[in-house]
């Protein structure tokens, strides 16, 4: 099928289209060892049915590797007694499970109308300009992945930008430029709520349920793991 040029490129579509081609990248295993294995078992024990721990375990893989390679899916499949295909079917469904190497900081900018009406799209365009061609995948320095985000449920603070899913309110272009410069130089600014965002690995650990203290576990959490690594602070 041929089509007009203006139809070919999805203009406001996120980098989420990219992973399909990239999904073939992989890492050497095992990725879940020692502590991570124990955390996996503990997570599974929290649910009435083992399979419910599938997404948390994929987050755990992401917290170890920085993304979710096939090797991680194979290990999760083995732990849960599923096939790799079953795990992959789930992993590919959710946008927060990254199927390709990502920057340490995932920058999400909301371009849904409530934000777009107040500059969200222009902010996204500017971020793309600053971060360069490959930023929707990973920047060459390995620092950033830029994503166009759907409504983040903070529309009163438009336009909203998130760094590893901690939000910054009413971000101007100038602020964006400084933020990116700052992060590059190792100074991550404190978010509007929730403290200074950690790296994607840290946030993934929180999302895996490692920040959760419930139900209270009799065995104590290994030092430093109780609050989900570096994120979120506050």
């Amino acid at each position, binding site marked *: 099928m041929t089509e007009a040029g203006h139809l070919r490129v999805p203009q406001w579509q996120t980098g989420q289209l990219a992973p399909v081609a990239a999904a073939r990248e992989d890492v050497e295993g095992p990725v879940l060892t020692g502590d991570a294995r124990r955390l996996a078992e503990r997570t599974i024990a929290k649910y009435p049915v083992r399979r419910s721990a599938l997404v948390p375990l994929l987050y755990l893989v992401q917290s170890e590797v920085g993304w979710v390679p096939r090797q991680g899916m194979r290990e999760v499949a083995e732990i849960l007694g599923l096939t790799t295909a079953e795990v992959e079917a789930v992993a590919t469904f*959710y946008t927060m499970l990254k199927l390709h190497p990502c920057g340490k900081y995932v920058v999400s900018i909301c371009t849904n109308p409530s934000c777009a009406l*107040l500059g969200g799209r222009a902010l996204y365009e500017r971020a793309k300009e600053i971060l360069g061609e490959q930023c929707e995948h990973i920047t060459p320095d390995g620092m950033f992945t830029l994503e166009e985000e759907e409504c983040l449920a903070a529309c009163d603070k438009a336009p909203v930008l998130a760094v590893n899913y901690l939000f910054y309110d009413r971000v101007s272009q100038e602020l964006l430029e400084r933020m990116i410069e700052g992060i590059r130089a190792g100074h991550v600014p404190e978010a509007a709520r929730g403290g200074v965002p950690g790296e994607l690995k840290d946030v993934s650990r929180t999302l895996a349920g490692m920040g959760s203290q419930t139900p209270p576990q009799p065995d104590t959490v290994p030092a430093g793991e109780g609050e989900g690594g570096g994120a979120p602070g506050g």
Partner: protein
Amino acid sequence: MAEFEPVLTARWGNPDAASIDGYLETGGYQGLRKALDMEPDAVIEEVKASGLRGRGGAGFPTGTKWSFIPQNTGKPVYVTVNADESEPGTFNNRELLERDPHQLLEGAIICAYAVRCHTLFVYCRGEFVWPGTVLERAVAEAYDRGYLGEDIQGSGFDLDVMVHRGAGAYICGEETALLESLEGYRGQPRLRPPFPAVEGLYKSPTVINNVETLSCVPHVMDRGASWFASIGTEKSTGPGIFSISGKVERPGNYEAPMGTPARELIEMAGGIRGGKRLKAWTPGGSSTPYLTPEHLDTPMDFDSVQAAGSLLGTKAMIVLDETDCVVDATLRFTQFYAHESCGKCTPCREGTWWMERVLRRMEAGHGRTEDIDLMHDVGQNMLFKSFCALADGAVSPIDSSIKYFRDEYEEHVRLGRCPLKDEGRPRLEAASPRSGGTTGETAQELPEGRELSLGEVLA
């Protein structure tokens, strides 16, 4: 509007309210105490009598939903809190989680007690890293103080609560997709019946309620059903939090009685930004048909908004002014649906995909007059033909924009470009000012999130 005392947002100005001490000091867990002294069925009756209807979009009576849970089936009963809030324009669940997590927890515990559930899940939107963490801390505190765990407050009632994080999928807010997701599958909706009340999580009887719905429950128990029912309208009782965003002076969450006219709500939000004229607004997020200035006197309750040709949905008002392009906004909403369609049902998967392309062509100035009817036609083939209501929601902005703003589509075709943009690029807008005060008549300044200053970000 008569004197209205904020209910759900009453603690929002108090930064300590998120802690259990702050919550207890301000009357927290009183509703639970009363509930635990009652028979579970009596709690259900009280909630029924309050007239409380679900705030997650569909407006189903909450007490009735709870009464559908069969007992003694030999299976456990589950309660799942829907904290997946992702309907465009909706942001009150997030603020309820951040500012008053115990209020939600208390409501959830009361619900669990009423339906005799001992394991409760909160399905928290993945992007809510911080709100979810606030909630997790509240859960830990509640365990610590005997509001969760075994023998809650000496009542003999046991309950465990677990916060489960989503991973970025709007569809997981739909209740059956949520259950699939929680069970470790792709978040794709199930065919109903069987309804979750009969076969929900792990094929067991399950209640699913929205964050705001459950946040109402402690007040129903504490102050009584008739007090609750005296607020709002006869068929839409109680207070509600209206999320107002887009082109208003002070976007924010505003609490007001259900049935407050849209005009008053927009005035609470400071009116249209920069004194411009209102063009279009959604009453309940992008999935509810646009309304226009002539509908501003519509009382914001379930029935009146429906009578006006739209839906109350999530009470999220997205406001467009005269300088905003309705075609463009509709295109962006449609891109959202195309991206978020789970792909299970053909009318939704294909329909949203094609609609996006036609709209993109239209907005880019390559549209044809026939496209307008084509879109209406495609919409008719999407409506009510899928497992869930995502596709119906996708049709809302398209059909209603054609209904009220057909001339704007025609103008795009005639000019071969968007009439409201410079060289096809979105105009640069300044960010919104401080967000609104939230609490109706007694509008107070709320503690805001940190404002990042330029000076502070390393130069």
